[in-house]
């Protein structure tokens, strides 16, 4: 039993650390550090910087143009990004659609999309949820009807991460409304967002930001060749995508960054805290930090199991506890910052003096999307505890 990394892993870590230090723009770094929204250009530039050395797609195998890293290397890489306040590679591209194309895409699709996806020449949006299908994704009702070499797609999709920045979207549609189970009869389509019939309506979230959209699909014609895998087998690919989404989502580094801001704010006089409040908040910060340390070990344990080729259903724990701690840290920050953090600005309407409130509101959604905490607990009860 041993917590330390191998000499090779340590050399790798140093290499990543040096690269990030040399190549991350100070402006992007500052935005990430302070929890501010990134511009599209910031994300694209960083992704391409990483891609130049083949690091933009940590989880992709070498055969698909990825670095072919081990689970430990992937962990180290992400940890270094967090510690250096670097953005993560765009997850829609790298963690979601990329692995699906690698596993289930046709050769033509791989040739057409993988490189562009890695280099963010294509920005992907996720089109899974619908107004009537959130945690219960399989209840979706968008339809695709075959018309020669095309599907004619109609429906409405929600919560598209950044669809207004995106070029393409991957989505689930119902191709066989008569299927016996609602999970049957679903297909996985790639849709060019410039297609006629696609309308994107912005949704502003309670953090004042625009990262979510509603996408209306009216008689959108999608070439059959842009279907991933088999018709009516889309649920299989979606499940694969979601299980990837759930891996490594403890986001410990992000919480650590929030705690660093808490420490700064506690040390600053701006907050105007009474001594008693300061002491109380410091105790709370210490408790969150301890839980975070535990979660880091838990994450390493899951990682070690993955490294050994086992899948560990306990990764749901990472999601639940990771979200809980990020939310707790962001709430603590809001309390510590005090009245200096009451001001608010909507995206595009100037900068708020403090991002504490925005971040707090942003993170309330973290226990809802990507498998709500209630769903994760259902999974633990069934799959881990056998209830």
């Amino acid at each position, binding site marked *: 039993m041993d917590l330390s990394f191998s000499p090779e892993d340590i050399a790798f870590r140093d290499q990543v650390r040096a690269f990030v230090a040399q190549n991350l723009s100070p402006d992007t770094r500052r935005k990430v550090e302070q929890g501010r929204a990134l511009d599209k250009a910031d994300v694209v530039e960083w992704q391409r910087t990483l891609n130049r050395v083949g690091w933009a797609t940590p989880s992709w195998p070498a055969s698909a143009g990825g670095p072919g890293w081990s689970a430990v290397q992937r962990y180290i890489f992400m940890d270094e990004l967090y510690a250096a306040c670097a953005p993560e590679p765009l997850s829609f591209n790298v963690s979601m659609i990329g692995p699906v194309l690698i596993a289930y895409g046709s050769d033509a699709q791989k040739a057409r999309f993988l490189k562009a996806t890695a280099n963010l020449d294509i920005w992907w949006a996720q089109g899974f*949820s619908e107004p*009537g299908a*959130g*945690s*219960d994704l399989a*209840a979706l009702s968008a339809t695709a009807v075959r018309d020669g070499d095309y599907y004619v797609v109609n429906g409405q999709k*929600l*919560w598209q991460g950044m669809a207004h920045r995106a070029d393409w979207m991957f989505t689930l549609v119902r191709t066989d409304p008569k299927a016996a189970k609602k999970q049957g009869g679903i297909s996985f389509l790639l849709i060019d967002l410039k297609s006629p019939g696609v309308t994107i309506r912005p*949704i*502003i*979230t*309670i*953090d*004042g930001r625009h990262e*979510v959209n509603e996408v209306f699909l009216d008689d959108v014609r999608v070439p059959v060749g842009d279907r991933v895998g088999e018709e009516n087998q889309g649920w299989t690919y979606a499940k694969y995508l979601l299980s990837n989404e759930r891996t490594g989502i403890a986001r410990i580094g992000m919480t650590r960054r929030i705690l660093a801001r808490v420490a700064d704010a506690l040390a600053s*006089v*701006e*907050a*105007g*805290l*009474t001594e008693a*409040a300061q002491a109380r908040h410091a105790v709370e910060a210490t408790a969150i930090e301890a839980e975070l340390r535990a979660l880091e070990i838990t994450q390493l344990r899951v990682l070690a199991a993955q490294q050994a080729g086992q899948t560990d259903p306990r990764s749901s724990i990472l999601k639940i506890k990771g979200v809980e701690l990020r939310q707790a840290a962001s709430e603590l920050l*809001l*309390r510590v910052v*005090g*009245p*200096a953090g*009451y*001001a*608010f*600005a909507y995206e595009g309407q100037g900068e708020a003096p403090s991002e504490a*409130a925005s971040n*707090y*509101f942003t993170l*309330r*959604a973290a*226990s*809802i*999307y990507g498998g*709500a*905490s*209630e769903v994760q*607990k259902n999974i633990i009860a069934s799959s881990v505890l056998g209830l």
Partner: protein
Amino acid sequence: MNFDLSEDQAMLKDTAERLFAQAAGDSSGDLWARMAELGLLAAPFAEEDGGLGLGPVETMILAEAAGRAQVLTPYASVIAAAGTALRLATTPPSALISGLAGGEVRLAWAHEELGMPSDQARRTRARSTGDGWIVTGRKINVAHAADAARLAVTVTIDGGQLVLLIPSDARGVSRRDYQLFDGTPASEISFYEVTAEASAVLASGGEAIVLMERVREHLTAFRAAEAVGLMQALLDATLEHLKTRRQFGEPLASFQALRHKAADMLVALEQARSMAMLAALSVEDADQEERRKTLAQVRSVVGKSCKLVGQTAVQLHGGIGVTEEHPVGRGFRQLTLIDLEMERG
């Protein structure tokens, strides 16, 4: 012992609820004028000052109705805070009060500063000129300042504190407007060598300290009741959502974990409701020690309830609960601000 409203109070509740429901649907902005017209602004002031001579229970009724409709009114800052400062001033300025009560003039309560606990001396300072004061300093988060003709400002002087009235267009006063995260328009106000006459002093010395505390107490009572209205609105919306939204072939209301969370919301709301009532029944209590303890307890319970009800309402709504366009998302932000205010005291 009774918790019933009098006939007049029930009428007031009815009036306020109708007015705010209307205002929630139509933000064309004449709410303040309508409130003045209906006499609502005059409620807490003495009859000889043009007021209605009503008490904290009536204020509670108004605040709860505003919260329930999720209407952002300037009532808390203009009437509950600045109005209390006038009402309880060493010499209440009768003409100004009647202007305030009639809706002809608005005030703002300029107290908060960066880096100061809410119950401690201000950094904004005034020095005596013999027959008046010269004020320099900076206030933040002054709610509804843009529409205020005068500012009730808390300042530190050699050996004590003052509460002063300063015209908002006085030379040396500058304003930067922004929004608080609950949607309230607010301003940072800088004072640079601003002159105030001796007659502008609402209270000084020990009386100023008491006046600041009384204003905080009345604000607490108002915000507690507003929070109760907000929590009721969010609970109602959540119950509606649980009953209508279906997942995995069942209405959400059939999932026990969600039912229990809704029950937790009710418990928190009822505890807060009790405390909002207690606040209204205690805020004019003559015993300062008892009042201070009671209002600290009110803040403790209401703050915690705001957090639980707000966070749970959003979680149970799922995705739509975090959108700006859904009332639950906005209500959560309103409750969050009240929670933070309650925590600071």
